[in-house]
């Protein structure tokens, strides 16, 4: 990682803004597709950060809540240009989405009321459900094959389906917090067991 200058100049901020504007405007498919583009732009072309640091950024962006594009923009922006670098990068990466989607939203209803567009979108609705299923299947492969992880996958899936069908309100926020807490407790138990074992064998 290059040293962050004490007072980042306007030049680096402008450069960050333009780079992330480009990244925001050309990344289809979100998340992982973006990582490749980011690496090309930040490591290969600009040389702003080295590969190792980039992997670190990707890991942080992935483990924190929120879209990866936003997370990496904020992080890289801060490292290179302090608070205003972070602000400029984050704004820039969101701006193209915002403008494009806002313009589409103005015409979407009228577009949808065209008969054949309506038919197309009825088909697309089935396609989107397929997309979400395949995203879930792809992510399932990254879940560790440990009993606890499998349980923390199966129970929320089942509970969410059943509770929705019976119209019981239970926010996804709670599932996430409960599963996180279970992860913490499991670690506590493992640590305690390890300690007990150590004490047994002097």
């Amino acid at each position: 990682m290059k040293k962050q200058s004490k007072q980042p100049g306007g030049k680096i901020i402008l450069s960050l803004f333009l780079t992330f504007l480009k990244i925001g405007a050309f990344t289809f498919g979100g998340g992982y597709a973006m990582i490749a583009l980011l690496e090309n732009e930040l490591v290969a072309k600009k040389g702003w950060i080295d590969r190792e640091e980039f992997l670190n950024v990707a890991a942080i962006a992935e483990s924190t809540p929120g879209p990866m594009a936003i997370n990496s923009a904020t992080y890289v922006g801060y490292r290179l240009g302090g608070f205003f670098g972070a602000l400029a990068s984050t704004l820039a990466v969101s701006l193209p989405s915002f403008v494009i989607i806002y313009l589409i939203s103005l015409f979407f209803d009228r577009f949808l009321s065209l008969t054949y567009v309506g038919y197309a979108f009825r088909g697309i609705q089935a396609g989107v459900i397929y997309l979400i299923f395949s995203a879930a299947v792809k992510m399932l492969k990254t879940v560790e094959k440990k009993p606890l992880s499998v349980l923390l996958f199966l129970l929320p899936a089942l509970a969410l389906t059943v509770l929705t069908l019976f119209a019981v309100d239970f926010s996804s926020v709670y599932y996430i917090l409960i599963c996180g807490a279970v992860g913490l407790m499991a670690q506590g138990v493992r640590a305690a067991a390890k300690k007990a074992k150590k004490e047994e064998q002097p």
Partner: protein
Amino acid sequence: MILLSLFLTFLKIGAVSFGGGYGMISLIREEVLSHGWLAEDEFLNFIAVSESTPGPLAVNMATFIGSSQAGILGSAVATLGVILPSFLIILLIAAILQNLLKYAGVQAFLGGVRPCVVGLIFGTAITMALSSFLGLATVNSPLHADLWGIAIFLLLLLFGAVYKKVKKKSLSPIVIILISAGLGVVFYGI
């Protein structure tokens, strides 16, 4: 106070959407349906548009839903809301807590959250399929099968599997959306 409601809702979504992309789909769906902002079919349309345009899914969805409820101000506050938690958390990590993710406790928490997010996406996909293909939003809804929708889903499943076998990679979301649009015109148009 639709603006405040949009802002707070998307703030919540931004703060707990782990796993990127579809990680926030279950929460967004719950929120838009329970606020009565969108119906299931409109929500699916919005996802399709968000997937077919550049940029993160969460930002696209926030802008779209915000605009549908309260025009440009609505999209601005919803987008701001969904971005703000990321921005603050990352600033915190980059500026002060560079080792935050290395703490055993944080790793253990994330270790519990990761499989959970996948489970939530699965559960959401199942409830969407039941509601969209069979009319079963809840067990009390009258059964109303959308046979063409089911046919399109099964065709995509088949096509996706064959493509993967032959080309060794998955179909891109945009190709899937285009195929299903074509099938929709053919099936529902006749």
